[in-house]
């Protein structure tokens, strides 16, 4: 039962990630690999504020979300001038840049959280406290599942309302024909900034839940493999609706666990998992580019 709860918490986290990425890929038409970087922004900010600053879960999460939204400018400003393949590559560069910062922003002997040792480098930040809400500290995994599910449902509700709003329809019009959208007097640059800020804020929220649950964060949470996993979720599940990302998150959260029952050697399990993601990406692009349950075929 404990194992199932653990899996469901991870599913909640990845459902938020996939829903936030769906806003970008499915509605704004912006394919990005930098999401893992923003996920880690949330996780690291929460970790630093709670471990070093002694902040509670609500102020720490709020600051994490705001910082991620601000840092999304690193990707939204290039999106003004670059589209398609080159934008994807810039997002990969931003992801590499984030990973490089998390990995290198450390100095032996300097206290954690100081300017010279902000991330503790490859060792990461440990002993992140469990969140406390209204004086009740969530240490039991079952209670944490309720907490994570509530946040995931809230994110899904916000995404649902956004996609049904005039703002969501404007996003779709920009996705379909940006030039025509601009011709109608719409400010597509501002729209991109808003979408990327919102999406980064959502994924940072997922990062804070991850840090609070795992009690540990290190640079691997922003690795390229994580970025590929996140993008695979929306490409496999499909984009352009709420159903696709959830299906993708469910499938790709469950898949690594299925490998356990096939008794692959532990040393090769992660390679096989990644190889499967690669194969899945190729097959989806050839056989079903709109994903298993998506409405929008990627341009």
């Amino acid at each position: 039962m404990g194992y199932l709860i653990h899996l469901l918490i991870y599913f909640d986290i990845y459902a938020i990630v996939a829903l936030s990425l769906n806003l970008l890929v499915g509605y704004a038409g912006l394919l990005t690999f930098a999401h893992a970087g923003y996920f880690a922004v949330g996780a690291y900010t929460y970790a630093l504020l709670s471990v070093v600053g002694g902040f509670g879960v609500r102020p720490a999460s709020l600051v994490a979300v705001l910082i991620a939204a601000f840092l999304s400018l690193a990707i939204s400003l290039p999106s003004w001038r670059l589209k398609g393949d080159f934008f994807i590559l810039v997002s990969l560069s931003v992801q590499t840049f984030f990973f490089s910062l998390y990995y290198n922003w450390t100095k032996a002997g300097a206290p954690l959280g100081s300017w010279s040792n902000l991330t503790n480098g490859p060792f990461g930040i440990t002993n992140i406290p469990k969140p406390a809400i209204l004086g009740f500290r969530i240490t039991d995994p079952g209670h944490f599942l309720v907490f994570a599910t509530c946040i995931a449902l809230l994110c899904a509700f916000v995404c649902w309302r956004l996609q049904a709003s005039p703002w969501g329809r404007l996003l779709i019009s920009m996705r379909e024909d940006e030039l025509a959208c601009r011709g109608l007097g719409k400010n597509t640059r501002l729209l991109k900034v808003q979408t990327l800020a919102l999406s980064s804020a959502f994924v940072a929220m997922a990062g804070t839940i991850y840090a609070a649950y795992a009690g540990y964060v290190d640079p691997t949470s922003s690795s390229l493999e994580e970025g590929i996993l996140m993008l695979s979720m929306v490409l496999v599940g499909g984009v352009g609706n709420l159903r696709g990302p959830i299906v993708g998150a469910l499938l790709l959260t469950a898949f690594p666990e299925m490998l356990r029952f096939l008794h692959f050697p532990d040393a090769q399990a992660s390679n096989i998992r990644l190889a499967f993601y690669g194969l899945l990406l190729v097959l989806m692009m050839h056989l079903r580019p709109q994903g298993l349950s998506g409405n929008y075929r990627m341009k």
Partner: protein
Amino acid sequence: MQIIINGLIAGLAVAQLALAFQVVYLPTGVFFVGLASLYVVAPYIYSAVQRLGMAWQLCATISIAVVVSIALLFEILNHAPLTRKGASGGAHLISSLGIYILLVQVITMTWGNNTMALRPEVHAVYHFAGSVVADSQVIMTVAAGALLLGFLAMLHTTALGLHLRALADNPTQFALYGYNVSTFRLIAFGLSGLLAATASLLTAYDIGYTPNGGLPTVLLAVVAVIIGGRTSFFGPIIGGLLLGFVRAEVVWQFSARWQEAFTYAILALFLLSRPRGIFSRTTRIEEID
């Protein structure tokens, strides 16, 4: 002087790979991320053949031939079918990336994850104008320089070069003139494989190789393409050399670990001030991608 030499050598490797990327991107429009897997595969094939006791010339030839074959298979099995289906550029990129991930995992499971060297002995060094240069760096400079100059000469003096430039300029018109676009696409992929394999072997001979080194290097090459100019064959070479010098300077002034941060800071600077790159041409608004 040492920084200039180091920058030139590092820049030549980036320039080679940037040209390998551009030789596919301009004529076909395919964002060839699979180039990273070609870059990774080459030294592993070389060392596998070397273990059979063959001479280095034969090892290099077989390695390059295998990499060129894989490049052709990329086109035949992946990009050509996607093009026939009218797939988007994003679909090409994602499927190409998928194959890269798959190949890297196969290499990791076969040969392990460690950094390896193509030769066990220590490099001989030469002293030149107060600087120290290893023999591998001399080989890199001569071979990469010759290859880049040879490619540019081919592009501007031969019929094949003219056809590739024509295909890059207007693929539809090229096809309407009766040329077989599929053949020239294959040639472009083959040339890209050749450039990637030589860049990889020369770098592996100099500093070693690892299964995960492909994508970061190709990303660097794409940054060189953006800086140099996305519509030119010559621009990426200059972009690569410029990046080489800047990264060598960063190592000297700060630390090697800040190379990536500075590289992407330069990219941001170019995107904001000159998004079409150094060697760019003016485009109509509907052409901007």
